[in-house]
């Protein structure tokens, strides 16, 4: 398994399927919406992200190797039970990484890039951050090496997860059979994750298995009566790639410079947090939405 990297192996598959989705959608054979500048930004983010990832991959792998030398158990890479275990534990780690990346601004600053398209197609999957290494979330996977999973094994499983999550970025697949929707992250579940409708915000953090969202209370099914509107709460007004890649870091720095005594809130508050509550957090948007729902509901009852 020397040099085995699922992402590298899958790259030709990524390219071929994006081409197919564009061409088939053009001839009306499947549902997909592309916009040229949006696609250009997504793909450029992906390409540069793969290079940016190299800069920190060495350091994070070295850290995992160091931790592994102090491991609690020695888990063989050749055992099937070990792969089942790493699959489950890595997927749960991904869930918490992803949840943290949405709920705290410092990590959102790196993850926001993946969500900034108003479109949802296979190219959106490749819209990846350039600053993930900087955000330091790779440290969340270190406990797996402390338990005793070889770092290479963890790395392979992370790659498998990334490749799995590629194909779910599509509107071409509506719903899969019930048992699959019950257990796995699917295009339908992940559309909800990319939606900016208040009731869909901060839901479905799953990597491969949706069971974690069901277990930890963040699951939201896609509803026929509420179509997903994609992107950010406040969508980007520019395709300038530098602004696209770094806007939340810049915004955070500006906030800290203006009100340094609130530095902890600016860094680790929920995205949209302000000392005076003047901006929108997803909790605020959800509450306002629920209040509007309740108002319409009671109006209907009164009528």
């Amino acid at each position: 398994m020397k040099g085995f990297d699922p992402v590298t192996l899958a790259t030709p598959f990524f390219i071929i399927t994006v081409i197919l989705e564009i061409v088939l959608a053009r001839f009306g054979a499947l549902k997909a919406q592309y916009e040229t500048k949006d696609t250009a930004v997504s793909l450029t983010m992906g390409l540069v992200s793969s290079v940016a990832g190299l800069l920190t991959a060495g350091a994070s792998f070295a850290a995992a190797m160091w931790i592994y030398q102090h491991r609690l158990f020695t888990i063989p890479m050749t055992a099937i039970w070990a792969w089942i275990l790493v699959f489950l534990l890595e997927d749960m780690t991904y869930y918490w990484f992803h949840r943290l990346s949405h709920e705290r601004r410092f990590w959102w600053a790196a993850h926001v890039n993946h969500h900034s398209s108003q479109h949802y197609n296979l190219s959106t999957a490749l819209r990846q951050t350039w600053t993930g290494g900087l955000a330091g979330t790779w440290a969340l996977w270190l406990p797996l090496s402390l338990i005793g999973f070889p770092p290479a094994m963890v790395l392979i499983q992370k790659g498998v997860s990334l490749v799995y999550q590629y194909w779910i970025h599509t509107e071409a697949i509506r719903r899969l059979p019930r048992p699959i929707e019950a257990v796995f992250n699917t295009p339908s579940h992940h559309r909800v994750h990319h939606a900016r409708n208040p009731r869909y915000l901060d839901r479905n953090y799953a990597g491969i298995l949706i069971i974690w969202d069901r277990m930890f209370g963040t699951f939201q099914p896609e509803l026929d009566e509420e179509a997903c509107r994609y992107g950010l709460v406040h969508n980007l007004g520019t395709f300038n790639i530098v602004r696209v890649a770094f806007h939340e870091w810049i915004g955070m720095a500006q906030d800290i410079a203006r009100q340094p005594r609130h530095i902890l809130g600016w860094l680790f508050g929920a995205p949209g947090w302000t000392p005076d509550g003047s901006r929108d957090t997803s909790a605020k948007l959800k509450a306002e939405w629920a209040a509007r729902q309740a108002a319409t509901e009671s109006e209907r009852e009164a009528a």
Partner: protein
Amino acid sequence: MTRRRGRGQVPRVNSAYLIQLAVSAVAVGLMIGLAAWATRGRGAPPLDEATARRWLADEFPGREVESLWIATDGLGALAKSGDRALILTRVGDGYAARQIDWSKALAARAQDGRVRIALADVTAPKAVLALGVWPPKELAA
């Protein structure tokens, strides 16, 4: 997309990696070109009043639109809602929405029929709207 990682070793930038990267870059160019071809002539139509009102209702739920001005080129709109100005600007085939104080929107000046409004936002620094005469005569102080 292109990453080289070995078992128990840090990633290496070698000629194989650079070739992969170059091939990926060419593929990216190809996919962008294909998207341009596939969407040719299928861009969003100029913004009309009904579409603008629908966007405003989605973006600013519960806010009443008192007055609405649609850009003559159909690339955006500006609405007055109490002491706030609600602004739509075209991005791709969608819109970005922002709100600022109405007094700031009113203070903006038109040049060659275009009003430049600073939005003080990293992700949407300014709106340039073809609103013709600004501020509108009925509202000018």
